Every structure is written in C-alpha cells, then in structure tokens.
C-alpha cells in the first residue's frame, strides 16, 4: 500500500475516533436508544454470580406482564438527580457541573440490583458478559460517568473495526485504493453509525460482526477459500449469534457461502455437488433441530403459540398492509436508519430522508441495469458476484427481522418489535458499497465516478455535522 494511502487511512480512523469522542460528549447520560437498559444489564451481569437473581421473566406466574422492574440504587438515584426520565435534564446556571453531580461523583450508592425483577435485557452473552461488564468491573472504583465513558468507548473500538473493514471490503472487491478510502470515509460519517458507536448498545458489536463477515466472504469470493477467510467467516458468524438475535442470519448465510466456496475450490461435477449439498443440508437441518433447545426455537419462530388472527395468511396480509408497504413505515425505518438519536424527537427531518431516497432510487436503477444488461461495461466497477452477495446479505437480514416482527404481530395483533432502521445498520458497509456501485452505471469514465464518490463524501460529512449541530445539540441542550 502506497505511503500516502496509508496516511489517509490513518487520518480516516483518527477522525472517526475524535468524532466519536465528541459524540460521547454530546449524547446525554444514557439517552441513546435503549442505552439505559443496556447499561443496567452490564451492571447486573458484573455482579458476583451469587448475588444475581435466577430466572428473569417478563411475566408473573399468572402470565401477566410485570410492569415494575428495578434498577440498582446507583442507577435509580443518579437518574432521579439528573431528572432525565422523560424530560430534558435540568441544567445548572453558570456551572460546568450539574445539580447533584458532586453527590453522584462520590460513587456512594450500591451497584447491586437488590429487588426482583431487575430491569435488564436477556441478550446472548458476548456483549454484556464478556465485554462491557468486564469494563464495568475494571473501573468499579470510579464514578458512574467515568465508567459509562469507558463502556461507550468500547463502541468506538468496534466502530473503528467497521470503518477499517469497510475499506478492506471495497479494496478486495477491486475498487481502487483511492475509491476504497472514499468508501471507508463515507461509511465513517454515516450519522446513525456515528451515534451508535458512541453509546452502550450491542448493535455496534453486531455491526462489526456483519462487516467482518462480509470481508471474509468477499475475500473468499475473490481469492478462493483458505483457512484465513474461512476462519473469519465462521468466527464472525459465531460472534454475531452470541451478540444479538439477528446475528443468526450470519449462520444462515455462512452455510451456503462456505458450500459455494468449497464447490469452487474442489472442481466437482455440478450435479454431484448439488446432490451432496442437498443430503448434507438435510442432515445439518435435522441435527440443528435435534440439538437446538426447543424454547430457543420457539422464541425465534413463535410457531406453536396461539395466533391473534384466524389464519397465518390473514395475519401476514395485515402485517404487510399495515407495517410494511406504507410510506410512513418506510419513513420510520428510514429516519431511524439515518439518524434517530434518542428521545425528544432528536431525529433527521423527513425532507432529508426523502432526498436520500432519491439518490438510493437512482442507484437501485443503476444496479438493476448493471446486473441485467451484459452490454453495459464499467470496467472499474466490481464483478457482479460481489454485488449479488451483498444484495443477498441485505435481503436475508431484512427478511429475518421482518419475519420475527411478523411472528410477534401474529401473536399480539400489535407491532411490538417494529422495524427501526438501526436494526439494518449491520449492513451499512454493504449498503454504501451497493449505492456507489449503482451510481457507477451513470458514469462511463472512472474519473467521473471518483468525482461522484467525493461528492457523496462531502454530502455525508455535511449530513453528519448537520445531525450534530442542528439536531442533537439543539434538541438536548437548547
């Protein structure tokens, strides 16, 4: 790699790091999406095991939802002093310290969840148990603001990995070094990614797992399967599953991907391979069905539970009609994909999202034309196999989240999970690369394509700064 390019990659990562420090400073105390719940879970899982409560359910023995759940004394008292619940914090006049801040700084309240049931989440262990709760323990003697800073900083590390691997993905896909740097910089300024990399939330770990998985896959598609990329694919899929439910989609993708890569490597007869693949798939499905605990299967599919509707077809139709193919639902997902920064309506305006849709729409047209028409030749764009894989990755995650959302809707008649756009952020690198690829259709010369990439970068940086100074700061502090 050319020395200048290495310098610029370092500059991209340094800028991302500084930007995230600033984002940590401007996102108020535990006000990121679900941040309170994830910090509470972190604190709970850092307790000595003998102090932890046993089974935690959302329902009592009569099947009624438990509404009153409890925090540790520290979270409860800090929250009361800051007055953050539901309204803006009450600020002190002419002071850099908030009201009651000196009390909070003393670190005098219990960190233990004394009452049952604790207000925590039941995510897989990789994020809370093996990452953030370790940081909580290391900094246990420091006040809550310092602990939260360091746990939030862990998200920056994950974010740095996302930016770095975005570069590596683009590079592997045969974009030039210059174009790959532009792609990485564009990803690094995506506003919602910036906000997510500055809060306590396992989403960032899932985004990192997806990005690394995509790198492994692209690497396999380009260089053929080897131990290195096979290990990257498998480990990132495991990391995804151990982080959050949607990580399961990586396992779903992992199997056919590895099978395809092996097929390419061993030069076996096509029909023979198809036969082996079918038999092996059946065996794996059977084994997975037998090995996977039934409650887990039921949780992810919700099959076997009583439906709110007369038939599955009716519930699916109503779900699609009410919660999928409507402009307001697209807008809801769009806003929270690009920038919904917590409560207080701190989100990007619809007009901004509509403008982005125009660009994405033009790009989608470009992708279709590039994939369908063999005569169109843009030598500087990546091969179609990469693009088909990225589309597949995005489609599988979309389907998985909407499937789970529908299953919950089927049970309750309400969209309790919903589809906030941040659930789709794990594919942010894939999404950005696809948009660039699609726009590439409209430029015959490489130079013009580069000018387009630079223009998108400028717009993304502006959008990021707009999010900070026109949305986040005024909403939370003015």
């Amino acid at each position, binding site marked *: 790699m050319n020395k200048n390019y290495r310098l610029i990659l370092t*500059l991209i990562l340094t800028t991302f790091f500084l930007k995230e*420090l*600033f984002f940590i400073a401007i996102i108020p105390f535990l006000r990121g999406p679900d941040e309170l719940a994830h910090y509470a879970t972190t604190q709970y899982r850092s307790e000595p095991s003998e102090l932890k409560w046993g089974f935690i359910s959302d329902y009592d023995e009569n099947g009624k939802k438990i509404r009153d759940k409890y925090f540790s004394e520290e979270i409860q008292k800090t929250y009361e002093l800051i007055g953050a619940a539901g309204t803006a914090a009450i*600020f*002190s006049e002419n*002071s850099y310290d908030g009201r009651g801040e000196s009390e909070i700084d003393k670190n005098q309240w219990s960190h233990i969840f004394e009452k049952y049931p604790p207000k925590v989440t039941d995510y897989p262990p990789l994020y809370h148990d093996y990452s953030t709760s370790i940081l909580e323990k290391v900094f246990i003697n420091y006040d809550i603001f310092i602990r939260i*800073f360091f746990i939030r900083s862990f998200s920056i590390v994950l974010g740095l990995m996302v930016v770095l691997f975005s570069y590596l993905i683009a590079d592997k896909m045969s974009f030039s070094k210059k174009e790959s740097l532009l792609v990485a910089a564009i990803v690094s300024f995506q506003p919602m990614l910036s906000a997510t990399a500055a809060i306590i939330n396992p989403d960032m770990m899932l985004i990192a797992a997806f990005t690394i998985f995509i790198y492994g896959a692209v690497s396999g598609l380009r260089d053929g399967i080897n131990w290195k990329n096979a290990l990257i694919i498998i480990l990132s899929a495991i990391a995804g599953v151990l982080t959050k439910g949607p990580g399961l989609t990586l396992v779903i993708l992992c199997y056919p991907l590895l099978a395809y890569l092996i097929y390419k490597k061993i030069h076996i007869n096509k029909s023979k391979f198809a036969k082996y693949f079918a038999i092996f798939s059946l065996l794996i499905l059977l084994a997975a069905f037998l090995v996977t605990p039934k409650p887990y299967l039921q949780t992810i599919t919700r099959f076997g539970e009583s439906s709110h509707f007369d038939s599955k077809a009716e519930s699916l139709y109503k779900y699609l009609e009410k919660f999928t193919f409507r402009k307001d639902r697209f807008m809801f997902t769009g806003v929270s994909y690009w920038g919904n920064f917590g409560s207080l309506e701190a989100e990007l305006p619809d007009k901004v999202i509509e403008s982005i849709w125009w660009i994405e729409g033009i790009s989608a047209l470009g992708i279709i034309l590039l994939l369908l028409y063999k005569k169109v030749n843009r030598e500087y764009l990546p091969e179609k196999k990469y693009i088909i894989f990225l589309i597949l990755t995005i489609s599988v995650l979309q389907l998985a989240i909407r499937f789970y959302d529908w299953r919950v809707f089927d049970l309750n008649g309400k969209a309790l999970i919903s589809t906030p756009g941040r659930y789709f952020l794990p594919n942010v690198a894939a999404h950005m690369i696809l948009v660039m690829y699609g726009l590439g259709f409209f430029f015959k010369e490489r130079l013009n394509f580069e000018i387009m990439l630079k223009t998108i970068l400028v717009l993304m940086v502006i959008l990021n700064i*707009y999010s900070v100074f*026109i949305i986040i700061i005024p909403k939370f502090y003015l």
Partner: protein
Amino acid sequence: MKINLKNNHKYFLLFTFFLFLAAMYLAFAADLSFPDSLPGSPKTGTTNLYSHTPVTQVFSATEKNLSQINIGIKNLPKKFSYKVMIQLADESCDAIIAEKKFGVFSIFSSPRKFKFKKIPDSAGKRFCLKITYLGEKEGKGELPYVEVSEKPADPNSSYTNPGKGGEYKGRTLKIEPTYSGTLSENLTQLNQRLSQYKPWFLKANYLTAIFALFLISSVILVIALIFL
C-alpha cells in the same frame, strides 16, 4: 468563459463543503437561545387552532434578552397555502412588539421556534403571545393544535381560545420563552450545559479541545480526499 468541471471539480467540491459549513454555522449560531433551567410543564392535552381566531396567553419572562418562544404547535397542514401568524404583544395583548407569518415557503423558520429581535429589558416583564391560524380546515383532517399543560409551573396561568369557548384557568399553552446573549456568552453557556453530567475530561476546555480536533481533522480529511 467555459468552466472545465473535470479539472476544477476539486475546487468546486471544496467551495461547496465550506459553503455548507458556513450555512450550518450561521443556522446554529442563530439557534443559540436558551430556555430557563426550570423543569417545563408536562404536556397533558391540546387546544385546537380555529381559523382566524387567535389563541392568546400572557406569560412572564424570567431573564433579560428574551429572543425566541418555542411553541408546541402541531398538525399544520402541508398544503400549499397554510399560514400561521404568531405575534408577541405587551401584557394587554394590544401593542404588538413582534409578528411573523409562517407558510410552506418558510424553509428556514418554523412556527415552533418564533424568533424575534432581542428584548434586552425583558426580565420580570409580562408579555402576551397570540397564535392565529390563517388557513382553513382541510376536509376530514384535524385542525392544527397547540399542546397544553394542565399542570403549569405557575398555577395562576391561563390562556384564551375564543374558538373553543373562552378562558382556561389553571392551564398553560406549552410554550418556552428562551433568552440569548452575545455569541461568546451563548457558546460559554452551551459548553456549560454540555459539560454537565460528564466525566471531568469531557468538560469545559477539554470538551472545546475535542470539538476543535474533530472539526480540524474532518476538514483536513475532506481536503485530503478531494485532492487525492
């Protein structure tokens, strides 16, 4: 003179970038106006805005330099013609001090943030806010409305809405008077607010340093990538 975009695109992009940055700075600086630090009254209801019938409320300014009133106004129709007029008057609601109309062309302003020329001696004075909807009800659509609190911080508050029935005592429109000093005073106050409930190394000058480094680094990165 023919402009060659291919050769000059770098300067054009750089110019666009700085132009946007400047616009953002101006919008941000114009927005720097602080509500007092007291807890606001919670929203507990709404009151409809009837066409050409002003809803009025008298309120007290707690500080000097009253410069803006945030108003919980919602459901404004997006139709081409809508207009809302907001006026600030003296306590008797007769002598108009500031007035502004909002329509679809109000791209850079919103009736939710009614800005006017700073009133230096506002501290302790009472003012009257008048909100008038100048459009018509559209079909089955609901009327625009203003959020209301039935638990006002000042129990003597009241507002009038003749379109609905007159005076409502013990209630307040959800409005928030805000105050603005010089740019330097505003930035200091903002830094103070941002610093609160943060670790010591994210406060005051440290915060300023982080912001400056982020901004400088971003600008260098954009320039470097444009000229790469």
